[in-house]
């Protein structure tokens, strides 16, 4: 794309965002305010994540973008096209080949390593907002680690539903200090945040917040001794395409027969398995 700086944002803006990222890494789980830039994409469509990616990316990076686990969704494709147009970097769908992965609502199934960064798009960065509308008050709670009302919220949830009913956006305690919203990833992905090799950076464009989980940081889902955190249970169902029973599955109602079928939510991983099986089969 002509007439734009590499990565669309000017160097001063990138440096500013990188400074905020460094602060976020220095205080794991703490939400750092940043001045969100205008992009040729509407806010709320991943602009927080895109700005992080654009300020980190270099010509030799390899980018993967997924939306709810899928590389080919309209959203993911648009973001890839835009970033490619302003950087010309290589694009991949292979989790193991990417140096930066931008994602919405999922963490890839394949384990990521120390040389990779996962950038998560965040719609609502404040975990405490579900019970406290005042920003002043939520900031005070974070500053003083005064989290009893978050626990009270879970207590009430248990009293009402006999379990913790939160699906996505399950609150976590980062580095034994800050309660953090992990973005709307399923509970399935929460365990991947704990003591991970990979740097996770979270960006909320509309709400103008950046936060991070540096590698090897403890991330614990909030739980009571007798009501523990549980991941989704697929009751032994398998992916209809690759046959996996150890991945996060999307439930789809088959229109023609009205039957429930299941598919890997991480489509590139599913493809990879499928291809390797076909190769085996051909042999």
């Amino acid at each position, binding site marked *: 794309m002509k007439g734009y700086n590499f990565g669309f944002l000017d160097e001063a803006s990138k440096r500013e965002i990188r400074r905020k990222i460094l602060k976020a890494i220095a205080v794991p789980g703490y939400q750092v305010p940043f001045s969100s830039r205008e992009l040729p994409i509407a806010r709320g469509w991943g602009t927080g994540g895109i700005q992080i990616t654009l300020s980190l990316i270099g010509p030799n990076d390899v980018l993967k973008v997924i939306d709810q686990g899928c590389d080919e969704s309209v959203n993911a494709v648009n973001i890839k096209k835009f970033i490619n147009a302003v950087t010309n970097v290589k694009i991949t769908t292979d989790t193991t080949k990417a140096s930066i992965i931008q994602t919405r609502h999922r963490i890839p199934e394949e384990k990521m390593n120390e040389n990779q960064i996962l950038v998560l798009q965040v719609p609502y960065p404040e975990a405490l907002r579900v019970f406290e509308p005042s920003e002043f008050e939520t900031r005070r709670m974070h500053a003083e680690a*005064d989290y*009893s009302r978050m626990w009270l919220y879970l207590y009430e949830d248990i*009293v009402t539903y006999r379990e913790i009913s939160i699906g996505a956006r399950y609150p976590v305690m980062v580095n034994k200090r800050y309660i953090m919203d992990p973005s709307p990833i399923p509970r399935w992905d929460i365990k991947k945040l704990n003591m991970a090799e990979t740097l996770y950076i979270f960006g909320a464009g509309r709400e103008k917040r950046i936060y991070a989980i540096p590698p090897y940081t403890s991330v614990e889902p909030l739980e009571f001794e007798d009501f523990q955190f549980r991941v989704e249970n697929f009751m032994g169902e398998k992916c209809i395409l690759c046959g996996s029973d150890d991945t996060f599955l999307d439930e789809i109602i088959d229109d023609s027969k009205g039957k429930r079928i299941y598919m890997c939510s991480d489509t590139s991983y599913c493809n990879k398995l499928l291809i390797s099986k076909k190769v085996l089969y051909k042999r």
Partner: protein
Amino acid sequence: MHIQPIVELKNLTKIYGKGCNLCVENTGPEHETNICVNCNSLVACGNVSFELYPGETLGIVGESGSGKSSLLKLLNFDIEPTLGEFYINHEKINTFVGNEKVNLFNLNSFQKRLIKNHIIGIVYQYPYLGLRMKISAGGNIAENLIMAEWRNIEKIRKKISELFEKTELPIDRMDEQPEKFSGGMQQRVQIAKALSNNPIILLLDEITNGLDVSVQARILDLIRNLHWQHNLSIIIVSHDLSVIRVLTQRTIVMKYGRIVEVGLTDQILEDPQHPYTQLLVNSQL
């Protein structure tokens, strides 16, 4: 024999408004106002000093607006004083603030929260100040237990049940919101909440207000029993002298933010010294 007070309060002053050097001088019973003519600020409490002794029930009486609720809120760190010193002498406090005697008003908010959670229990004059009306009654109590690091639902609910039983609340209604409860039940939930973390000091503000006489009597019995069972030191605010007569050993009389008389409750009620106290006692005979 000298008994060490459990609470010492020295020269507590609370001014609402910007305040000036003359606020305290310009207000009080002799001026018949709590508003400073110089700067228009309101002196809710001026130079209030007293002691509370271990196991004692201390009454505070005084007309509407004399600063009684403000005083309790100051002791519970709900509002910041303009001036003053506050000490609690109890070994439980040393684990939070060290062995030095420190003015509790100067602690940081984390330390203040520890003291609120572990040492003080409060029942507010209006239930909406002490309870979250949209959270279950049990949840209101659970919040205090959670603050004290309880993380087991079964244990939390068992403790809530015990507190419900103790305060004569129906256990099968612990998951209902207090906004659905009667005034007397709401006060009981507040009392249960105040007792949840085994406080050593209990602050009670007009707990029988607006309740009919039989409910009042049962709440008073409850407080008396709790006082004995838990060896509590209690400060109870009431404008109702019969409550003061039944529950307290000593009484403080307040007017326009000042203490105008302190003494044994019996003496104050039989032989009031200050003209305002005489008026108060005679009007309620």
